[in-house]
């Protein structure tokens, strides 16, 4: 039996797995022993990657009678090209857009950005907008580059670990293992819900929903007043601290309990824990990222780390845990929110550099970042966008306020879905379906949460007619008439070489990474410049205290705390929070509903966690059917699950069911345009029997 090492393409940890292959079939999957990242362990999803199989080999085209029929790839590419061009000619270039993903390789994302953004001249955003845009913007503004600074190992080296809006026991079990291995650290979880991680933490800070920014500004004020700050670090390596100090001066302990639910005494205790910690690390994820003031909240965490000197040293850091397997690849190399490599669309030197690498005229490169995911849906509903290309994502399910996307589908003249599965909630409505292959049949690179490049190796041979996303993008590009410029993109390896060139001289420079270095290995973290030697396998940024801002200093960024834009009312008196509830189910379940082990352990219907006391008050019993109505006018049917882990007037719904995001709001962070999935006023009613 042949054994081939590859990288799991679910979450951002990037576990490496050994695939045992015989007769072009995966017989078993075992996590790569002694791999730096996952150390011979993984979660159930990785072990079941053999279940990912292409739904079909030939594309499907909807006929005039509404029936989908198989067509050749040539016909599909030609149809894509002619229909999209027709729409662009009729309604303008930007009447076509795409919604993409962080579930495909960096090479594929780069090529899509080349064909879609550069040559079609269209807007195209990724589902990274739904999870990591906030962290990316926070990093860019504070550090000068989208640079998660840590190595996962820092969890093992901390004496104080603070999780904020993060539930790694469920979302990133392998990351949680790092914390478990650290027997000495005090673990603190800040979360309005008593999540699985809070249960296993030493301290649960049970804040009111969306009051985290208030808590962190108050903590900053207390740390300053007590002189529990690292003055030397602040002085030498940061800027705008004085203004920040004046800003947080108004966030005193006096109002903190009313606003956050955390008493003065507990805030003081938390400040003291941070002060006494020698190696304090802060780890945040969706509870922070998916908010209406999310970027500033993330920066309030960065500010705490910087002012206490807890950054750039082992066991420290303001550390954003990434969501999807290639969010980092998408953030830097998809040509959607920045020019390749984290470059600037407005910087002429950057533009020339990229154009030279691609051997194209600089003027055809996009001149601005894409409009956001939410704006694309809005423009479909306003009639400005008529053609949509959806790649490996499922917006009918996962977009916030998802009935808006349901309406958008009806407004489109041409919907193309490119996916592994032809039965996703979005694919069911498309006019053209382009079937792609699973990651087990692809070659490329993923970049994990700690900036580690790791190879996706084709563990299975493709069967005749099967095309990877990379080849589909090439086919579309050629049908659109892009010929010579695509010669530089013949294979994923060619794309990898282009990506390296894009990175040259940037903070994420990977010019020293030979592709063979990331195959059958521990991978390589960026930066890794030409001439660098790989001495340490687990590296963190800012050990030299030099940041990527023009001044070389980290910036304190802050603003006044916003009022909740959609507060609870008498009619909608409960706050709905959303998130993941199982390790086995992945996002919209398109990839995991075919795994029997996972299905056996998953509740089939949409369900809602409701506090026992509230349920009693409302006469709701376990497994009763309830209607949840939200302030956006949408309703959904859920099964009641009585719980003591949500507070009395809070409700929690798993994101794995399409009913949930019908209820989430069309409210976005000002800077990142990431949806505020975690706060929605709702009411509930028991369904009469």
């Amino acid at each position, binding site marked *: 039996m042949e054994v081939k090492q590859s990288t799991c393409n679910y979450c951002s940890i990037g576990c490496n797995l050994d695939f045992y292959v015989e007769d072009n079939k995966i*017989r*078993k*999957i*075992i*996590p790569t022993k002694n791999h730096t990242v996952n150390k*011979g*362990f*993984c*979660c*159930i999803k990785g*072990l079941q990657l053999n279940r990912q199989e292409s739904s079909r080999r030939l594309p499907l085209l909807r006929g005039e009678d509404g029936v989908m029929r198989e067509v050749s790839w040539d016909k599909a590419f030609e149809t894509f090209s002619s229909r999209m061009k027709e729409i662009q000619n009729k309604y303008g270039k930007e009447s076509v857009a795409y919604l993409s993903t962080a579930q495909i390789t960096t090479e594929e994302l780069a090529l899509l950005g080349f064909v879609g953004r550069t040559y079609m001249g269209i807007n195209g955003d990724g589902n990274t907008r739904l999870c990591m845009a906030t962290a990316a913007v926070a990093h860019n503004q504070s550090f000068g580059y989208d640079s998660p600074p840590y190595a996962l190992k820092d969890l093992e080296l901390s004496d104080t670990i603070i999780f904020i809006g993060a539930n790694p*026991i*469920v979302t990133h*079990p392998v990351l*949680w293992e790092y914390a*478990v291995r650290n027997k000495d650290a005090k673990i603190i979880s800040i979360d309005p819900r008593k999540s*699985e991680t809070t*249960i*296993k933490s030493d301290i649960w800070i049970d804040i009111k929903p969306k009051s985290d920014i208030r808590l962190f500004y108050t903590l900053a004020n207390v740390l300053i007043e007590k002189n529990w700050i690292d003055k030397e670090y602040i002085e030498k390596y940061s800027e705008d601290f004085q203004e920040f100090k004046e800003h947080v001066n108004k966030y005193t302990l006096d109002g903190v309990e009313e606003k956050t639910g955390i008493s003065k005494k507990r805030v003081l205790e938390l400040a003291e824990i941070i002060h006494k910690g020698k190696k304090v690390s802060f780890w945040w994820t969706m509870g922070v990222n998916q908010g209406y003031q999310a970027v500033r909240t993330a920066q309030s965490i960065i500010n705490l780390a910087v002012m206490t000197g807890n950054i750039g040293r082992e066991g420290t850091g303001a550390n954003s845990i990434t969501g999807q397997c290639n969010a980092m690849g998408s953030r830097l190399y998809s040509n959607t929110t920045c020019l390749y490599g984290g470059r600037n669309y407005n910087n002429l030197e950057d533009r020339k550099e990229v154009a030279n690498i691609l051997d194209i005229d600089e003027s055809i490169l996009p001149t601005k970042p894409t409009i956001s995911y939410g704006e694309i849906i809005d423009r479909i509903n306003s009639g400005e966008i008529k053609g949509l290309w959806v790649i490996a994502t499922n917006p009918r399910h996962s977009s916030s306020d998802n009935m808006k996307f349901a309406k958008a589908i009806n407004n489109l003249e041409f919907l193309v879905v490119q996916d592994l599965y032809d039965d996703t909630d979005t694919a069911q409505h498309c006019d053209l379906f382009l079937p792609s292959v699973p990651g087990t049949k692809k070659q490329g690179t993923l970049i994990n949460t700690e900036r580690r490049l790791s190879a996706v190796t084709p563990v299975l041979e493709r069967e005749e007619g099967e095309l990877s996303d990379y080849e589909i993008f090439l086919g579309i590009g050629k049908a659109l008439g892009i010929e010579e410029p695509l010669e530089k993109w013949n294979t994923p390896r060619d794309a990898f070489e282009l990506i390296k060139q894009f990175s040259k001289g940037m903070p994420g420079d990977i010019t020293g990474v030979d592709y063979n270095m990331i195959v059958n290995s521990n991978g390589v973290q960026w930066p890794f410049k030409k001439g660098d030697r790989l001495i340490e396998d687990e590296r963190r940024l800012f050990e030299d205290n030099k940041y990527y801002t023009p001044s070389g200093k980290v910036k304190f960024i802050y603003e006044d705390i916003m009022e909740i834009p959609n507060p609870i009312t008498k009619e909608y008196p409960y706050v709905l929070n959303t998130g993941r509830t*199982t*390790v*086995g189910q992945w996002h919209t379940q398109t990839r995991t509903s075919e795994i029997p*082990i*996972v299905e*056996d*352990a*998953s*509740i089939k219907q949409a*369900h809602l966690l409701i506090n026992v006391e509230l349920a009693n008050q409302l006469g709701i019993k*376990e*497994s009763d059917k309830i209607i949840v109505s939200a302030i956006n006018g949408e309703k959904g049917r859920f*099964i009641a*699950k009585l719980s003591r882990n949500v507070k009395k007037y809070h409700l929690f719904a798993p994101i794995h069911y399409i009913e949930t995001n019908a209820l989430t709001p069309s409210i976005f962070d000002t800077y990142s345009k990431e949806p505020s999935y975690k706060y929605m006023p709702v009411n509930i009613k028991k369904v009469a029997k």
Partner: protein
Amino acid sequence: MKRIKIDRDKCIGCLTCTTACIISHGSADNRSRVVIDSYGKYAPIFCRHCEKPECVYTCMTGAMKKNQDTGIVEYDKDHCANCFMCIMACPYGVLKPDSVEHKVIMKCDMCQGTESGSPSCVKKCPMNAITLEEV
């Protein structure tokens, strides 16, 4: 003997026990599982190494044996006739054949034959929902 004790109230259905079981045995298959009961509650199902093991009583070849010293119900695939009587007899429905050749019985050995030496599922459970207890 020490047995795996399950506290269903602590189980979060994360399948870390199932994952640990597969990895510990270097296998394609799990020897335990987690299901949802009719109330929507997680129900981890493990071999109980029964005092009166039906799988042993129904085994025609002696491949399934109760080790009187350790209390573990052991399985010897080399003596197995693949008759699946043990699968039919197990009152907990925990036994099943392997998924590749459909011959070998996937039977918990308390990780005795593995590098772990003691149940890997217990070691890895993040919620301490399964523990090793003397009974």
